[in-house]
């Protein structure tokens, strides 16, 4: 946010990468890519690339974090050093700690945590290539990894950001639009009920623009959820073939 782009970001209704206002970047999701993990997922959203791994339900360490009535959910979002234009110092930053927290809050409503008391579910998310929308991609990937781990879920969580660029509300910002835009509004929701599990926003928007942005995100989340489900079904079929051989 903030800076000014030296070229217009939207020309005749088309964005710099040729998309219309409401068009998503091409994306693909693959489940089951880490053998050691209980569940895993690799996701590409345009140039943003994410890997998520789930370990658990497992023993809680340190023990004092254990909860008697539900599982302890731990989310670690991190950007690997070569995922950004300037090298990203390894280790948790204030930004990544905040994002880990909001991702945990976004996923928790969908997980049946009460089913796994006195255990820990560990979700690790690594951003391997960052081009805006890393937290939303992280949520999309983590959801698939959780289902892949066989953890009981109430619904999938699908996530996407809308934003405001040159006074227009647009969907799924990429790097330049994120850097030079007027607002960014990431959303996560459970498509079955339409309940929102993540909201963040920065920039400047009117209430009407926010309404428009949320409507766009709702539609996009339905599309994303379909691909998430397909990734799980594909992985399941894949395993079935292997087991039969």
């Amino acid at each position: 946010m903030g800076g000014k782009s030296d070229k217009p970001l939207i020309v005749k209704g088309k964005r710099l990468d040729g998309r219309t206002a409401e068009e998503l970047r091409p994306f693909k999701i693959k489940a089951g890519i880490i053998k050691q993990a209980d569940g895993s997922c690799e996701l590409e959203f345009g140039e943003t690339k994410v890997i998520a791994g789930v370990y658990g339900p497992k023993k809680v360490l340190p023990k004092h974090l254990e909860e008697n009535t539900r599982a302890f959910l731990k989310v670690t979002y991190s950007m690997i050093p070569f995922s950004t234009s300037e090298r990203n110092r390894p280790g948790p930053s204030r930004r990544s700690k905040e994002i880990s927290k909001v991702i945990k809050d976004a996923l928790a409503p969908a997980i049946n945590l009460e089913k796994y008391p006195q255990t820990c579910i560990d979700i690790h998310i690594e951003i391997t290539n960052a081009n805006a929308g890393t937290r939303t991609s992280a949520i999309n990937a983590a959801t698939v990894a959780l289902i892949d781990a066989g953890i009981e879920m109430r619904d999938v969580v699908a996530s996407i950001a809308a934003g405001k660029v040159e006074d227009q509300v647009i969907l799924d910002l990429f790097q330049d639009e994120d850097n030079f835009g007027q607002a960014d509004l990431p959303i996560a929701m459970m498509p079955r009920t339409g309940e929102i599990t993540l909201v963040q926003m920065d920039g400047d928007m009117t209430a009407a623009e926010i309404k428009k942005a949320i409507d766009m995100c709702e539609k996009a989340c339905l599309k994303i959820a379909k691909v998430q489900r397909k990734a799980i079904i594909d992985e399941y079929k894949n395993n079935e073939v292997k087991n039969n051989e």
Partner: protein
Amino acid sequence: MNNKENSNLKDYLSKLLKKKIREDGRKPFDYRKISVETGILSQANGSARVKLGDTEVLAGVKIGAGTPYPDGPADGTLMVNSELSPIASDRFESGPPSPASIELSRVIDRAIRESGTIDVSKLCIKSGEKVWMVFVDVYPINDDGNLFDIGLIAAMAALKNARMPKYDEKTEQVNHRELTKDKLPINEEPVMCTFGKLDGEIFVDSTEREELVMDSRLSIGITKKGNICAMQKGGEGTITSSEMMDMIKKAQELSKDLRKNL
């Protein structure tokens, strides 16, 4: 608090909220009484001590000089930090900043930064070499809930109270002992309304006991024009899009009264 006590508290508060009343007699969209004192600490460039019911927050501004970031060689910098010191609640522990304290500082920072509150282009001393750096520290002294809304009021009050230190052109040093009459270049007054949701009931300005058991919260930063400059959802519950639009409308109404405290 153990699980049993927690669920008893939740039942109790939720029953009250269904009758549109709170434990302390407030209606769902009433704020507790706010009081603001400024200019109370002589070492700080600007300071404020703010109360919201029993919640109390101290905010201080320090202004120094330093090298600008490469992407804004002529822009001053702003940094908002908060620390949840164990003095304010037995839920806080000393040590490295917890996710909750990082979230608090970053959400307050976002509301100030994204609304363009401070015109950083006016904080240049020598382009590419030296700019003013503004540090805002928010220290809760007593946490009885809703640190987001009152933390932003404290930060804004301290920023508005701040005076620039003297800069000696010859020695190129900042003289921290002498404050000028110049204020910071402030052109916006963002305030924040944080809503809680408990068993489907929405309310504003939660107490510590309400925060312990509520399902989710949404903080909404509002500018003078009534636009939205920051939002953050928290808690492991959900909200619907229509609830969210209602909260935005309510925040726009409530922001006018909140801003009177600045």
